[in-house]
Structure formats: structure tokens, C-alpha cells
């Protein structure tokens, strides 16, 4: 079903049940005119937050002053993970008699709106699940507590977790603002029935390669998997690219600034880096040739009819729906979607590694969530301990056993792999890149939200309207101007 063209903005990177990250921005649709000034705004936001809190949490009131210091409030957005964390909370309460953990789960869409509103109003939760795209904003707002300076959480070490995870959660000041809780990588999900009928084996899928000139074996494979309404394949004569029934590759919007589940595996394996530094770079590289030629090739697949067009994407028609309904054969997507793909009715799903690129290597983005402690709750021992417990092997193994995500610790990851296996889900395509060290982190810089706001329409313009990739150089210049202005 194609509905309302494109719900621009939405795309997936949450571990969310709903999976849709729509507009990084305005959800409080107040009628506040342009001249409403900040105090009014703060008051407004406050009212919103207050009413949300009372509505959402059964009116336990603002947690700072009124409720006891032995109640810890915790927010997360993924309904699928709620049972795991409820189990953690129970174990935590048993270890700490008298302490109570109150978990609030909100959908991804509302989560960030309510969270920022509550921060402005001073009614934020003690601990919350944090995402790397939002991290810079919270650092800028100065609302997070440095975990390395607090007694209960000072013991958290980078080496406790899968390589690279903890480093992403350090601010420019070197302090740790998030305790790693889980990780995810990108791989290809495919419809086994379709690959079988196209004569493409699992081994072939796991050893594909691409390049920006002719697309390599990867492009050949998705061309073969593309079928038009008369049954002709994309690599057969007479193929009608304007009348495609099954697309080789599913669409997941244009990918904003990171392209996590769209083009990041390709730009990454082309050897391209988002910024000039590993973390907190001061300069983006969207003007580089390796990036632009990759994007040109990638969105060019849509013109050839192999990649589903931009307009086929909407919140209700994500890649999992496209593959599940048989309108696409392959989707690059995150490990958090494994259970969803494998649970699709009538879909015999498989997973494969992302293709090798011009650099001679594969590359998959490895991202992870963390738990952050708010500044207001920093002097609350129970809240500190809860963060430490969430970051511990004990809790992460509990969460891993649910088989929904890969927890950040080794033991937690092992528990998750075992749980996935029990469900008949092969997660090698997600774990092998980590073992092989062919991962790269999610870009983190100042002004992350503004960078996304600039890149989103620019990438959509290339994808949907065929605008030349050279136009991204202008956007990149503006991004770097903004980054040069502030710290």
C-alpha cells in the first residue's frame, strides 16, 4: 500500500517498536505565534510537560521535590525492550530494599518532545535512554551529569563493552555522559523465496561487491531480483523500469545526514568518513568525491528501476513492510529489526553481510544506545546506582535473554545471540563485522540536529527530484559554516 507519497523525515534508527523516527523536531504543535518569547515559551513547554507527566505516569508528581529520593524514574521508548528492563528493575529493587524504579515507555515520536519539554520545565526523569543523534543537543543544553565523577558510576570502563561503544558517549570535555546499554549494526535482510527463484545463493549474497562505476556484483544481484509486471527481470532484455512489480532494493527515505539504513554501508566501504575527526569533528565531508560518486550511484539505482522510488516510502510502508509484502527483495536494515523481519507473516527471511566496497572492505555502521543521568538527579544515590546497574553484566544479560537487541557487554551480547538462535534467527551478518572490526561509528558533532535538518531535504532532492549530487557541496559549506561558528 502506498499512502500519501512520502512521510518525509521518518526513518528508522530507533530500536523502536514503531521504528519510525519522524521529524526530529516540532511536535508540540502549539499555536504560539512567531512573537512568543522565551519565558512564555518556557511556561508553555512547562505546562505541556507537566500535563504529560501527570497524564503519563499516573500523577506521581514531579519527582524532584515531592516524591521520595528512593524512587528512580526511568524513560525508554522501545516497547519491545520494556519486559527486559522491567526484569532488571525488579532485580535492582531486590538488591536495594526500599528503592523503587518507575519505568515510563513512550513511543519514539513523543519520547524526545516530552523529554526536552520536561527538561525545560525541570520535571525530567532521573535516568533516560539516550540516542547519539540527540546527545550533542543535551550536551549543549547542559542537562546531563558526568558519570565519571559520580561515586556509583565512576567505575564504568570503556573496556567493559564492545569496542568503540563507550567512546561515542564522551563529550568534548572528556567526561562520560552515557553508560552503554546496547549496540546495533546494519546488514541485508532478504526474501529467501525471491533469491532462490533468481538463482542467487546465500553464499553469493554474503560475498557481493559494489563499485560506483558499474555497481559490481551487488548491482547485478539486485537487478536480477527486480521483476517488472510482465515477469521480466532487471537484467533481461525488454525490462520495463517504469512498471516494476518487485524492486531489488527497498526504499527507506533518503537518509538525512547519516544514511544509517540507506547508504552508510556504501559510503563507508568506499572509504569515506563523515567528518575530519572520529568524534566531535569540526568539518563535514559531504563535498568529497568519494561520497558524491557513491550517492550518485546509489540513488541512480532508483532511476534504473532497481531501488524503489522515493515516493514509495512512507511511515506505514517502511522497508520491512516492502520486503514483507513482496514488493522488494532486499533491504539494508539494522539488527534491531531482526525480530520484525523474521516475524513477518509469509516471509522466509534471511540475512547477509553488506557488500564489499571500492576500499576492498565491507563497512557497517555500529551504533549504540546509552543510559544518561540528568543533572538534577546527579546527587541522588539511587539514580546513580540504577545507571550503574543498567550498565552491568547482570542487567545486560537479562536484557540479552529477551533476544531483542544486542546488549553492550560481552556477556550480554552472548546471551542475545543464544536467544536469537533459539528463535531461529541467524545474526551472524550483524555480529561478524564486530568480530572482524569492519565497523565505524555514528557521526557525532555539535549541531547534529541542524546538520540533519540541512541534509534531509538536500538528499531527498537528489533522490526524488534527480538534483545533481554536486548540490550537496553547497549544503556541506553551510554545515561547516555553522560548525565554525559555535562550540
Amino acid at each position, binding site marked *: 500500500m502506498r*499512502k500519501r507519497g*512520502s512521510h518525509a523525515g521518518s526513518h528508522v534508527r530507533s530500536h523502536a517498536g514503531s521504528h519510525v523516527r519522524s521529524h526530529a523536531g516540532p511536535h508540540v504543535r502549539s499555536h504560539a505565534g512567531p512573537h512568543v518569547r522565551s519565558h512564555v515559551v518556557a511556561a508553555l513547554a512547562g505546562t505541556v510537560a507537566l500535563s504529560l507527566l501527570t497524564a503519563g505516569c499516573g500523577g506521581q508528581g514531579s519527582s524532584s521535590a515531592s516524591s521520595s529520593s528512593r524512587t528512580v524514574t526511568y524513560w525508554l521508548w522501545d516497547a519491545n525492550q520494556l519486559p527486559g528492563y522491567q526484569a532488571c528493575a525488579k532485580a535492582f529493587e531486590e538488591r536495594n530494599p526500599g528503592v523503587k524504579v518507575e519505568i515510563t515507555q513512550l513511543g519514539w515520536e513523543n519520547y524526545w518532545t516530552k523529554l526536552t519539554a520536561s527538561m*525545560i520545565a525541570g520535571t525530567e526523569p532521573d535516568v533516560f535512554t539516550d540516542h547519539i543523534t540527540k546527545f550533542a543537543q543535551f550536551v549543549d543544553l547542559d542537562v546531563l551529569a558526568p558519570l565519571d565523577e559520580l561515586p556509583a558510576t565512576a567505575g564504568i570502563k570503556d573496556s567493559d563493552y564492545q569496542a568503540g561503544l563507550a567512546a561515542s558517549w564522551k563529550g568534548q570535555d572528556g567526561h562520560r555522559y552515557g553508560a552503554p546499554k546496547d549496540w546495533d549494526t546494519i546488514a541485508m535482510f532478504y526474501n529467501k523465496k525471491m533469491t532462490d527463484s533468481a538463482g542467487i545463493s546465500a553464499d553469493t549474497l554474503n560475498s557481493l561487491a559494489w563499485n560506483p562505476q558499474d555497481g559490481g556484483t551487488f548491482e547485478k544481484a539486485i537487478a536480477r531480483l527486480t521483476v517488472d509486471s510482465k515477469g521480466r527481470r532487471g537484467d533481461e532484455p525488454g525490462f520495463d523500469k517504469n512498471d516494476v512489480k518487485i524492486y531489488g532494493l527497498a526504499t527507506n527515505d533518503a537518509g538525512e545526514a547519516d544514511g544509517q539504513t540507506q547508504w552508510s554501508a556504501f559510503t563507508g566501504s568506499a572509504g569515506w568518513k563523515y567528518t575530519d575527526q572520529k568524534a566531535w569533528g569540526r568539518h563535514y565531508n559531504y563535498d568529497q568525491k568519494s561520497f558524491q560518486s557513491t550517492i550518485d550511484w546509489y540513488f541512480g539505482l532508483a532511476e534504473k528501476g532497481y531501488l524503489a522510488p522515493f*515516493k514509495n516510502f512512507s511511515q506505514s510502508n517502511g522497508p520491512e513492510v516492502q520486503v514483507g509484502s513482496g514488493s522488494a527483495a532486499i533491504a539494508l536494515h539494522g539488527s534491531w529489526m531482526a525480530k520484525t523481519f523474521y516475524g513477518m507473516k509469509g516471509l522466509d527471511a534471511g540475512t547477509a553481510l553488506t557488500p564489499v566496497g571500492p576500499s576492498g572492505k565491507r563497512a557497517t555502521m555500529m551504533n549504540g544506545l546509552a543510559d544518561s543521568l540528568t543533572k538534577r538527579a546527579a546527587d541522588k544515590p539511587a539514580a546513580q546506582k540504577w545507571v550503574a546497574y543498567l550498565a552491568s553484566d547482570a542487567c545486560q544479560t537479562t536484557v540479552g535473554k529477551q533476544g531483542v537487541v544486542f546488549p553492550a557487554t560481552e556477556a550480554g551480547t552472548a546471551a542475545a545471540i543464544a536467544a536469537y538462535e533459539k528463535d531461529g534467527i541467524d545474526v551472524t551478518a550483524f555480529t561478524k563485522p564486530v568480530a572482524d572490526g569492519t565497523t565505524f561509528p555514528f557521526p557525532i558533532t555539535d549541531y547534529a540536529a541542524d546538520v540533519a535538518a540541512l541534509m534531509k*531535504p538536500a538528499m531527498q532532492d537528489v533522490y526524488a527530484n534527480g538534483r545533481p549530487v554536486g548540490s550537496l557541496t553547497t549544503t556541506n559549506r553551510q554545515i561547516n559554516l*555553522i560548525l565554525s561558528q559555535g562550540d
Partner: protein
Amino acid sequence: MAVASSSTPRTKPRGDGLLAAIFIAPAMAGFLVFLLWPTLRGIYLSFTRYNLLTPAEWVGLDNYRRMVNDPIFWGSLRVTIEYVVINIGVQTVAALCIAVLMQRLTTSSLLRGIVLTPYLVSNVVAGVVFLWILDTQLGIGNEILGALGFDHVAFLASNEWVIPSVALINVWRHVGYTALLLFAGLQAIPGDVYEAARVDGAGELRMFWRISLPLLRPVLAVVLIMTVIGSFQVFDTVAVATPGPGGPANASNVLQLYIYGSAFGRFQFGYASAMSVALLAVLSVITIVQYRLTRAGETDLG
């Protein structure tokens, strides 16, 4: 920032000066607190980096430098102007027609009232209802198009249609109100002028061009100034009825929406203020030019 409080007008001691001051005070207080102070503070904030939670930091012209280089800002301005041109163009012509018909054809206040009904619906409700009507797959508007043998049109989700669609939705809502204002202006034209014209053998069309339109000019000018300003501030319909903030590839990212997103979505209050100041400047210039061109302050009557 100590500008606001010092300006109390008229210090000459006169007999009724105190009384006058008392009468002026409420309006003056409202003006100072709700208009002048926010405006000055907004202008001040446009020179700072401010995120609402940490203190504002003076950055000079940084926000303005960012603005003139920002492709999205210029895109938003272009989209907004496209919207205003379609919205005001269609609305003014339609409202004028309705007003003249109301004046020349009927005296029924029921009919005149019906014209106003869309205005009683809130913008948000109108936006949502039209979102349903115009839905590409399921909307009744597209169903009718389909039944007539046309292809379905993504009125609110495609690059080329979204702004005209939103502009026309707002025409639907505001045309009655605009017509009513123009109608009031027409009522002020003395009936004997028409009578004299009719004696001289003028037809309805000729009377419209030679009498109604020239004598309506001052009212029309004021209505235009008001509606153009209102039109530039389009926000709610776009926010409600188009997908994502700003539609596909920002095709409906009008300026107010971009300002709102910068401030409340990304906490760039300084930058958002700079863009608001730019909008204020644009609107001031347009209003002054309109006022001059249309000689809104003068009348041709008697």
C-alpha cells in the same frame, strides 16, 4: 536593555494631561509589555546563541551570516512568496466577486452569513479535514477524480502540488471573511452614484469597473495589507496538512515553519530570532510599499 520604560509621551503639564495618561496607560502598558519588549528582546536574541536553558551568548552577526548563506532559508522564503502570491491572488479576486454579488444581487442576511461559515472553522481543523479529503489513496476528493477517469493526485504530498493546495485551502477558509470586509466597503459607497450611472445607461460591468472598484480602493488597500501580512505568517495549515515538517524535499517548508523548527525543534533560538527579524523587515517593507502604491490613506469620494 533599559530602553523600554523611559518613553512616556506628552510631558507638557495641561489640565487634562493626567486623565489622558490614565486613559492611555492600559493600552500603553499592553503595548510595552506585549509588543515593544518582545520585539526588542527578539532583536537582541538574534545577535546571540541561545538554547533556552543556558545563558544567551553574544555572537554578533553570526546568525545573520548563517542566514544569508542558508539554502533552506532562501528556499523557505521562495516557498512562502509562492504561497502568498497564489493565496492572495485567488483570494482577493474571489472575495471581490462574492462581495459585489452580495451587494448587487441579494439582501438576504442568511446568504451573507453562509459565505462566512468556513471562517468559523479553525485552521487546524480545516487542515486535517482537507488532509483526509485530499488523501492520495483514500480521500474522497481523489475518489471523485478517479470516478471521473482522472489519475489520483498527491495534492499534499508532492512537490508541485503541495503549495497550491495549501494556498487554496486557506483561500477557502478566508475568502468569506475577506468578502465581508470588502462588502462593508461597498456598502459605504452612496447608492445615488449607481443610480446616476444607471440613468446614463451604464451596465453592471461598467459600474463595477468605473464606480465600485475605484471607490473601494482605500478599503481594498487596507484589506490587502492585512491579508498579505496574514498570508506571510502561514503556519498551522502547513504544519498539520503536509507530511513531515516541510513536506517532501522541503517543498512546503514555509518560513514560519522553518523558524518554528529551528527554535522549538533544534533549540536555535538565536538563529530563529534572526530569521524572525528578517521576516519583520520583509513585511515592513512590503507594507510600506503597498500603502504608498495604493494610496490607502486617501479616498476618492467627494
